[in-house]
């Protein structure tokens, strides 16, 4: 059944993925196993196929949608069963930026890799990022910007974290079309990833998990 669920996610069949997750739970399979033996491997394959150029954004998104459908069923059970997730990530697009396809992909890939993701949505101000770090105590804070004009809000968030005395408590990662590794270093971020698949690797590496 887990193999079937994995296949449904790979093929982007969202209704089937939700259904199979429900069936697996009813069959008494532990939520942690469903996550780690079906969803995580499926998203690993998606990430790898993207790396190889076999998948592009549309093919990645359909799998991500199916994963999301499965997670909607699975998440409450995961919380109940007290499965330990790999880490917590707060994510959002910066102030003035409405473009969230990339951010959504990163969020779903992270979730599919076994991380807890708190998505703050679009146009998140420095204040709201700081507030979320206080409230959720995440391991990683992810920021995305698709415009060169909004990218400049990234250092503002980092400064705000410093001012609130929270900078040392969270790893900051950045991404989006105009963002580069050099820019990430310049503004004092802890990491940069060029795409959703490598963002997962980056977070794993920063948190020392596999």
């Amino acid at each position: 059944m887990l193999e079937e669920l994995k296949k449904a996610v790979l093929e982007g069949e969202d209704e089937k993925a939700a259904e199979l997750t429900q069936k697996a739970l009813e069959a008494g399979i532990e939520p942690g196993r469903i996550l780690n033996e079906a969803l995580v491997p499926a998203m690993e394959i998606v990430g790898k196929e993207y790396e190889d150029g076999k998948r592009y954004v549309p093919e990645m998104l359909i799998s991500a949608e199916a994963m999301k459908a499965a997670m909607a069923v699975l998440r409450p059970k995961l919380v109940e069963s007290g499965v330990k997730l790999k880490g917590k990530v707060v994510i959002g697009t910066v102030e003035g930026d409405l473009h969230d396809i990339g951010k959504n992909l990163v969020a779903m890939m992270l979730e599919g890799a076994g991380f807890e993701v708190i998505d703050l949505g679009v146009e998140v101000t420095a204040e709201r990022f700081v507030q979320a770090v206080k409230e959720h105590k995440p391991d990683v804070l992810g920021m995305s910007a698709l415009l060169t004009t909004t990218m400049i809000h990234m250092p503002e968030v980092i400064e705000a974290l410093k001012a609130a005395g929270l900078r040392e408590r969270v790893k900051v990662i950045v991404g989006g079309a105009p963002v580069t590794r050099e820019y990430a270093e310049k503004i004092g971020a802890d990491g940069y990833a060029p795409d959703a698949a490598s963002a997962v690797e980056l977070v794993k590496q920063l948190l020392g998990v596999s």
Partner: protein
Amino acid sequence: MGSIHTIFLDPAGKKVEAQDGENFFFALISAGIPIRGECGGKGICGRCRVRFVEGAPPPTETEKRLLSLYELEAGWRLACQHVVEKNVSLWIPFSGETLGRKTAEFLCSVPFSPKATLVYVDLSLQKRGKEGSDMESLRDVLGGNIEVSLPLLQELPRALREGAGKITLVRVGKNVVTLRPGHRVIPLLGLAVDLGTSTLAAHLLDLRKGIELGAKAIANPQLPFGADVLSRITYVREGGEEALKRLREAVVEGVNRLATELSFEAGVASDEIIHIVVVGNPTMLHLFLGVDPSSIGEAPFVPIWREALFLRAEELNLKVHPRAVVEVPPLVSGYVGADTVASILACRLHEKEFPCLLLDLGTNGEIVLGWKERLLTCSAAAGPAFEGGRISCGMPALKGAISHVHLEKGSFNFEVIGGGEPLGICGSGLVDLLALLLEEGLVDATGRFSPRPDHALFSRVIGHGKNAKFLITEGIYLTQCDIRELQLAKAAIRAGIELLLDKAGLNPQEIQCVYLAGAFGSQMRPQALAKIGVIPNELLPKLQSVGNAAASGAIAMLLNQELIKEATLVAKKAEHVELACEKKFVEVFVANMKFTRVENVAFKR
């Protein structure tokens, strides 16, 4: 049999051979040179103007009547009035390349009623003192339709004295730009300017005769400061006042260069330019006027102003008549500017009985869906791929660019702009190539190179997965990543089209005509555009290329003063759709990245 002479044509750089004694007009026409002549060489219309670079023949009586003394001195003649007797060099101001055929047709249909006029006044007929002042007499004669200005007051006494009460006013609407004593013919020149992100274009017009004297385009001198509007906005945000000044000076200098060169080539003086209409995208207009465009750079993407502006050349440091009137038509939003408004006017979209689409496929592709009931506009962030940007071997549509590719009887060929060695591939070539690869099954519906060892062209596909690329010719190829960039660009445009149709509750079948504007548009093979899915397939037979419609609209506003008022009505009527705020956008955008025929995703739910 008479001998053969050669006519050298500038600035086209062409040569035409003609029989000794053959009429210039007919020699040029039969050689396919686009020369104007409404009367067919009868010496009536005065439109077949050519300039003899040297050794102009003595003017005929017809020419003395139809051309000004200044023009005659500069070597301007009418082609129909002279015969070829020796080898000569001619300067021909028109070129079919700058004005699309459709656009030229449209311009001929604009009623000639310019805002700039010469007004002859004789105040000696007025009883001095009756009105209390000369200014009041003047206003009385002109029916009150005049605005008082300091230069007018300062110039008036001398002109009245020297002309014994007779004066000639150069008027643009209510404004007197300048005045001269006596009744005389003063040249009235207009300049239509289109400020594009990558190209600045200008057309010089004779507003007395209603003809174009020349057209020219140059690369935007702001290019070193960033290739797209966002990077220029960032430049201003980071560099402050100083950066804004630098960008402003760069574009003003570009416009001045165009004005100076066009005037020189037409044999007129640039300070005879007294009316200018400037269109452009909102960011370019902000930078041209020295207004900080930062607010356009982030949500909610609001410009500083939207209304039509009425300015003076001296305020803008333009090297034309210092008191020339500079008009900037209104904007619709932060990404839909006066250029789009001008294009709507040029295509008469707001008068159409049935819905029509207007597409301008630049870095920010503007899309308008309009007819007499509604005008819906949006800007699709297509990125620079269609202009050859962010493509490994991409380049603008300049000399050396591969502009088209074909597969004929199994052999793969390409065309290079200007002939010669290919240096890279431009937007039209990219669209052609991608369409061909899809057609031949070498790229699948998801945009991936697919293994087709049986295909003759498969040997050109080198590498695997992310590193796969198609070899066009030595050193020039299309990579897997390039295809991804093109997928993003086409999906953005197509999503924009579908969302506008959705907003208006229309099906593609209900669209009567699709106008493709911009230099890029005229290069495109419509079949290739439809094949890669930029436009829905059913719109293919309705596609019409209209050249630089924004510039045509600006020209039209100089030729007919009603059109400037109309521009304001058009802008008021236009509804802006912010794609990034549309709920369906992501879904439609993502669905359209593929090459399968996903018709009208927006309607599916």
